[in-house]
């Protein structure tokens, strides 16, 4: 989960998120250099003694400041498109989970190997145990295996919601009447948090998502396979 006042990205828990962090660093360095150049140009503008207002015909400068931005955009676009197509790859998922958004909770369905269906409500402050996270912890977590390609089918029963888990690099809209698909492979075990990311009413901020990622051997012993 994010720590207080965190501005940057969370650590990656999936290969896609690792790629996104790499791309973010790449784009940020380019942005930094552009900002540096602009600040320098601003400084020169404010400190110049040149006051001739009839300057015209700066062909070389015009050529440079047309071609250079085009090159910069290509440098940013190529890795971006690579990752975009990577997120669309579906690598033969071993497990499919349905996630249904409601006002204001999530329903999860594990129907591959049985009929496990449950709701996931935020824990009200009065029900928190010591160590629980306020406004983030839920009564029933989504338990999933690591190092296994998983498909999430996301929809909604009422209004728009969005199922998001930042550390996995996931954010998919839950649209009533439509089934959206996203896939991921988690690389390390742990408990990971997300929040609804599409305004959906009074309690939009109070319907979090909690994934509990565990080793496959332990997952196979759980209720999904023994129901």
């Amino acid at each position, binding site marked *: 989960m*994010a*720590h207080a006042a965190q501005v*940057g990205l969370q*650590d990656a828990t999936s290969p896609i998120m690792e790629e996104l962090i790499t791309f973010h660093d790449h784009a*940020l360095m380019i*942005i930094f250099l552009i900002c540096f*150049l602009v600040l*320098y140009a601003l400084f020169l503008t404010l400190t110049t003694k040149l006051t001739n207002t009839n300057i015209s015909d700066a062909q070389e400068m015009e050529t440079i400041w047309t071609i250079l931005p085009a090159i910069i955009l290509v440098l940013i676009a190529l890795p971006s498109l690579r990752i975009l197509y990577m997120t669309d790859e579906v690598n033969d998922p071993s497990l499919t989970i349905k996630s249904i958004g409601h006002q204001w909770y999530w329903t999860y369905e594990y129907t591959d190997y049985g009929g496990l269906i449950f709701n996931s409500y935020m824990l009200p402050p009065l029900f928190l145990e010591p160590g629980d996270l306020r406004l983030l912890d839920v009564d029933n977590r989504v338990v999933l295996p690591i190092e296994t390609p998983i498909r999430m089918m996301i929809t909604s029963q009422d209004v728009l919601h969005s199922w998001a888990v930042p550390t996995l690099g996931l954010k998919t809209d839950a649209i009533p009447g439509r089934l959206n698909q996203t896939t991921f492979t988690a690389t390390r075990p742990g408990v990971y948090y997300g929040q609804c990311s599409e305004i959906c009413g009074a309690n939009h901020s109070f319907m979090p998502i909690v994934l509990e990622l565990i080793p496959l051997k332990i997952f196979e012993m759980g209720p999904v396979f023994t129901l």
Partner: protein
Amino acid sequence: MAAPPEPGEPEERKSLKLLGFLDVENTPCARHSILYGSLGSVVAGFGHFLFTSEIRRSCDVGVGGFILVTLGCWFHCRYNYAKQRIQERIAREEIKKKILYEGTHLDPERKHNGSSSN
């Protein structure tokens, strides 16, 4: 960027954010690129000034040198970093395979020895 470190974990370095957003301490290759860029900027700017004695133009050359050297170091370092990550991932997979399949017909070492003896 990350959660506070657990006891026993190496402490995350204090973040220094250039222009308020570029975290040079925790972004791989950023510190290295900025430092080399600064050195390149000083060398280029000062060198130009020594030859021409023009202050303004030398400052422009310095800024241009900073941008070019930083960008060059950045791409070079990130390329090597990406190569290293791929090699680490391959090594991790091979170690896992070795542990899982040691002594069986799927043992990667047995396959490798078999192909080299043929």
